[in-house]
């Protein structure tokens, strides 16, 4: 990163803190609550190996005798298991914390992947124009006409066919990141392309071109820093979407394997026990997922409004 971009970023940060955004953050209780909830969940999930009361990934520590224990406030509850245990005797609270970690990892990584891909294609499309532009944008439009979940299912299906079951289980998390990332790149590409079209005609780009800089450098060193503004908003909203998509895929049984359960996998496992009264196995992961997605979404919505000059 060059000095100019660092300075620019610092400047941006300072302006952000001093200005309307910070003010609007302080003035909305809901956003503050959402931020706190998100922070707690992200910290709880990230540091789950240290914070969780049990290590549910270590099979030697779980015992079938403890299975199907209800939450602690119910009859037969056990103080060791705050939210009860599942059919194999895993502590639900720890399982949720570990599960949220997988969900968040997949969410963040796939958003990052989609962003890198989408921004690169958007920049190329906007700057190069002509045939390349048409080609990329038509491909984007075709993909937009399919729901993201369908694309993710398709990509996962291809990998499932190409890899044997064992390899697929091992790589499941990365396949998931690839599948979700590939189904979300379009928004970034379209946004960046339109900003690039605007920036392309400005004097500083002209000046850079006159000095003989190669297009690659013009695009990444000069245009890119000026089109990143809206990306943060898209990324935040997409993070919630990516988490939901991962949970949906895992719920359908095509996501991460049960040996490394995400929130969606936990809901799927618990689903089998809904009729028999062991509601805590599915309800708690469900609530955790809903709260996490809602909090992230509220943050995203607020960020969108706060950064929108028309609403200021």
């Amino acid at each position, binding site marked *: 990163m060059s000095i100019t971009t660092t300075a620019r970023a610092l400047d941006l940060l300072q302006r952000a803190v001093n200005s309307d955004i910070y003010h609007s953050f302080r003035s909305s209780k809901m956003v503050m609550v959402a931020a706190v909830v998100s922070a707690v969940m992200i910290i709880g999930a990230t540091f789950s190996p240290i914070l969780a009361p049990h290590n549910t990934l*270590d*099979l*030697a520590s*779980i*015992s*079938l*005798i403890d*299975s*199907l224990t209800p939450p602690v406030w119910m009859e037969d509850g056990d103080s060791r298991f705050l939210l009860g245990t599942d*059919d*194999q*005797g895993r502590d639900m609270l720890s399982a949720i914390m570990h599960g949220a970690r997988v969900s968040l990892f997949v969410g963040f990584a796939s958003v990052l992947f989609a962003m890198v891909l989408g921004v690169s294609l958007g920049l190329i499309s906007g700057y190069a124009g002509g045939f390349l532009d048409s080609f990329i944008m038509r491909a984007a439009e075709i993909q937009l006409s399919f729901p993201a979940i369908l694309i993710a299912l398709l990509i996962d299906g291809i990998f499932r066919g190409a890899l044997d*079951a*064992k390899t697929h*289980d091992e790589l499941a998390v990365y396949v998931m990141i690839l599948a979700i990332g590939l189904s979300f790149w379009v928004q970034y590409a379209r946004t960046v392309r339109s900003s690039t079209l605007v920036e392309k005609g400005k004097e500083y780009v002209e000046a850079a071109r006159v000095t003989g800089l190669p297009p690659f450098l013009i695009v990444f060193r000069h245009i890119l820093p000026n089109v990143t503004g809206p990306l943060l908003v898209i990324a935040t909203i997409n993070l919630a979407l990516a988490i939901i998509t991962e949970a949906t895929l895992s719920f359908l049984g095509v996501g991460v394997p*049960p*040996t490394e359960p995400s929130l969606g996998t936990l809901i799927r496992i618990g*689903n*089998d*026990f*809904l*009729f*028999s009264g*062991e509601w805590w196995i599915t309800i708690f992961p469900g609530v955790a997922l809903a709260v996490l997605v809602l909090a992230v979404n509220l943050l995203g919505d607020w960020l969108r409004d706060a950064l929108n000059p028309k609403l200021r």
Partner: protein
Amino acid sequence: MGLRRSLIAVASVAALCVASGAQAKTFKWAFQGDAQSLDPHTLNETFTLGFLSNVYEGLVRRGPDLQIEPSLAESWELLDPNHWRFTLRKGVKFHNGNDFNADDVVFTFDRIRMDGSDIKTKVAPDTKVVKVDDHTVDFITTKPNPIVYYEWDNVLIMDKEWSEEHNAAAPTDVTKDSENFAAFNANGTGPFTVESRETDVRTVFKPNADWWGEAKHNVTEGIFTPISSDATRVAALLSGEIDMMYPVPVQDIKRIDSNSGTVTLTGPELRTIFLGMDQSRDELLYSSVKGKNPLKDKRVREAFYKAIDIETIRKKIMRNLSTPSAIMVSPFLFSKSSKYERIGYDPEASKALLADAGYPDGFELGMDCPNNRYVNDEAICQAVVAMLAKVGVKVNLLAQPKAQYFKKVLGYDTSFYLLGWTPGSFDSWNVMYNLLSCRDDAVGRAKFNLGGYCNAELDKLTDEVLVETDPATRDSKIEAAYDMLAADIGYIPLHQQGLAWAKKDSVDLVQRADNQFMLHFVNVK
């Protein structure tokens, strides 16, 4: 005028619909997986064979109490100890209109002994099948076999002309990706025809109007849907979307019984669920141990046995709908089974045995498990994995749908697996021949002994039991074989699972103890 005419048309169409609705008896049922194939010789699995027994028939069949009845064969007699004569039923037609005759029987018995057939073990490789005339077939064995036809209810007869015409004279091999016409189309002699089939989605059956027997059902259309999710299957029954489903997830039996209009049928099943271990390879597959096979060491097998807490599995996973077992056959099928007791659960002794065998820190190995075949199969495997983890053995579980699972393990590509077995003849010889004797791939002996357990003396007893006619001597030989197996710890028997079906009150059907469901006995009120 035009309006009036169209109104009359609508009314008469509606009347027609109502009229046919009153008579149409559609029966919808669900199982946790689909039949592997429509080819009746592809997989020796209770569900697939039971499913296809609605469409295809064997020379004999089994009634509601599992007693053997004549089917495509009207009668049979023993001419001399090695020579059986079967008289075939006359006037039977396949669904495509072809006549059923001795050529089809000879063809079928050749077909099931070809490469790729999974039911090779139902007839000895050196048995001669000879056509005498169009409706008489002789079976000439090299050794006397008093129970030669006991498993022939599951040797489903195919039409020679139809199979050859469609290039399906050889069976499709479940361990390979080969498929042929017979895997997607069915042409049997049975009481139902396959109207349409989408693999893993839906199969529609229609009654065969030209069937030779007397129909004991009133079904005009049977629709089968595989529903792998337990909760979805229960919900489908509770909401009335289907009329019958099995297996019932054990945790939901109470819920279904307390719901008005639905009821569960439970009972002991003849199936034994067990763990198998690779004892033939010199180096274990999917393991951290290189250059040797720890499972060849009896101490390691005993350590595995002692690490498993079967009582907790019974209580917590099977919710008491299982009977822990010490032998590889249901107590209903062997009179002396009560003398056998399981080796007790003792994790400390298990650890000591592992240390003694040279694995004080345990080792790592892979395990194969189906996830839609037996009651709570995947949950049992997960529990076994956790229990072995407690004694230091790290098991990497690969739980797959049965289509992929069988493809893998029947190719012997496994080191540790969970399997269930119901002897097709309801007799211990079937268990000994298929699971306990030494594997001989050339003749298909012990084809389902996936871990390659081999004890020469037990192997010898298997052949003796087959030809032994005195019941007491026969039982004591079987007993000796089970003693040897227990001493060797060749397998780890887990339990006999319970049978749990659920249906609407408005449906009558027959629950057979071998867990085969026959559309032929269904009556819809």
